[in-house]
């Protein structure tokens, strides 16, 4: 079943590549992944939206430290409590995540590649949702999940390093995953971050190409859309400051 999205309420013409990216991202989310089935990925996406109304998340956001507020998340049910914690924190309070928090998630039994895929689903959906909200649109309906099993492909080239999660180095991207860095000589950590689950890197490129700039144009400071590059970076910097993101 094709994914049909309605942009008419935006009141402006939304470029076709952006609409196509939104459809592709929602289709990616509903498809079986590497560690989660399509149904589980849609459940993760639905929980990410549900987090916006979670009392515990609101109380934590208002607190000096999220660790000072305990309780249970308002959850849709169906997902493990630790996964719900990951989804809610990444959606509602990403700027105050810590290595200790991550270590606690892994100690609770979530595998690192499972974690990486949850991060990808939550963040890719968050991008679509923020874009839609800025345009004045209601969140797009989540599509029905597609059948199939996760592949469980673990790339051997992903190695531990200074980040919380293992990543594939530029020089190690080979074989079936040789495409994930487009042969670029410099690949920023933000792209490598999801590389333990290569299909999520591919999805991130699709998102970034349409929402920001095509990968080949990113190093070019004169690259532009209707906004020039300085205007784009001003918006990016403001968003990142609001998210309290150092990166």
């Amino acid at each position: 079943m094709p994914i049909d999205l309605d942009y008419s309420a935006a009141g402006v013409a939304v470029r076709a590549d952006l609409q196509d990216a939104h459809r592709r991202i929602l289709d990616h989310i509903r498809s079986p992944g590497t560690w989660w089935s399509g149904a589980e990925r849609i459940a993760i996406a639905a929980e990410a939206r549900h987090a916006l109304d979670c009392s515990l998340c609101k109380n934590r956001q208002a607190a000096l430290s999220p660790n000072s507020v305990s309780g249970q998340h308002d959850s849709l049910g169906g997902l493990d409590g630790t996964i719900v914690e990951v989804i809610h924190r990444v959606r509602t309070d990403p700027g105050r995540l810590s290595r200790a928090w991550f270590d606690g998630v892994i100690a609770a039994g979530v595998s690192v590649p499972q974690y990486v895929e949850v991060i990808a689903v939550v963040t890719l959906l968050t991008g679509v949702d923020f874009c839609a909200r800025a345009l004045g649109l209601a969140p797009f309906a989540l599509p029905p999940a597609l059948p199939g099993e996760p592949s469980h492909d673990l790339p051997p080239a992903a190695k531990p390093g200074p980040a919380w999660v293992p990543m594939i180095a530029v020089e190690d991207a080979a074989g079936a995953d040789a495409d994930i860095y487009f042969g670029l000589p410099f690949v920023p950590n933000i792209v490598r971050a999801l590389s333990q689950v290569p299909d999520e890197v591919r999805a991130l490129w699709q998102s970034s190409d349409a929402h920001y700039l095509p990968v080949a144009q990113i190093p070019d400071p004169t690259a532009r859309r209707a906004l020039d590059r300085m205007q784009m970076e001003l918006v990016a910097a403001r968003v990142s400051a609001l998210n309290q993101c150092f990166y």
Partner: protein
Amino acid sequence: MANDQAAMQHERAQLLRLLSPQQFVDVCAVIGAFNVVDRIADSTGIALDDMMLAMSAGLPQELGLTNFNSAANTPGMR
């Protein structure tokens, strides 16, 4: 403000007075893009790349960005 529909509508109208519709769409798209990458960065504990750190040349400290929790993921920033 993001949860205040009236305020959001007002801001959209203000932006559309200043920008073309195509520019307005680009603003919305970049807002989406950086709500993705910020969350990926902060949930995977990646450090700011050496090249970008060198280019920023003291700006993180000057702007107070080192006060952000996620600055701890970049050696020497906290």
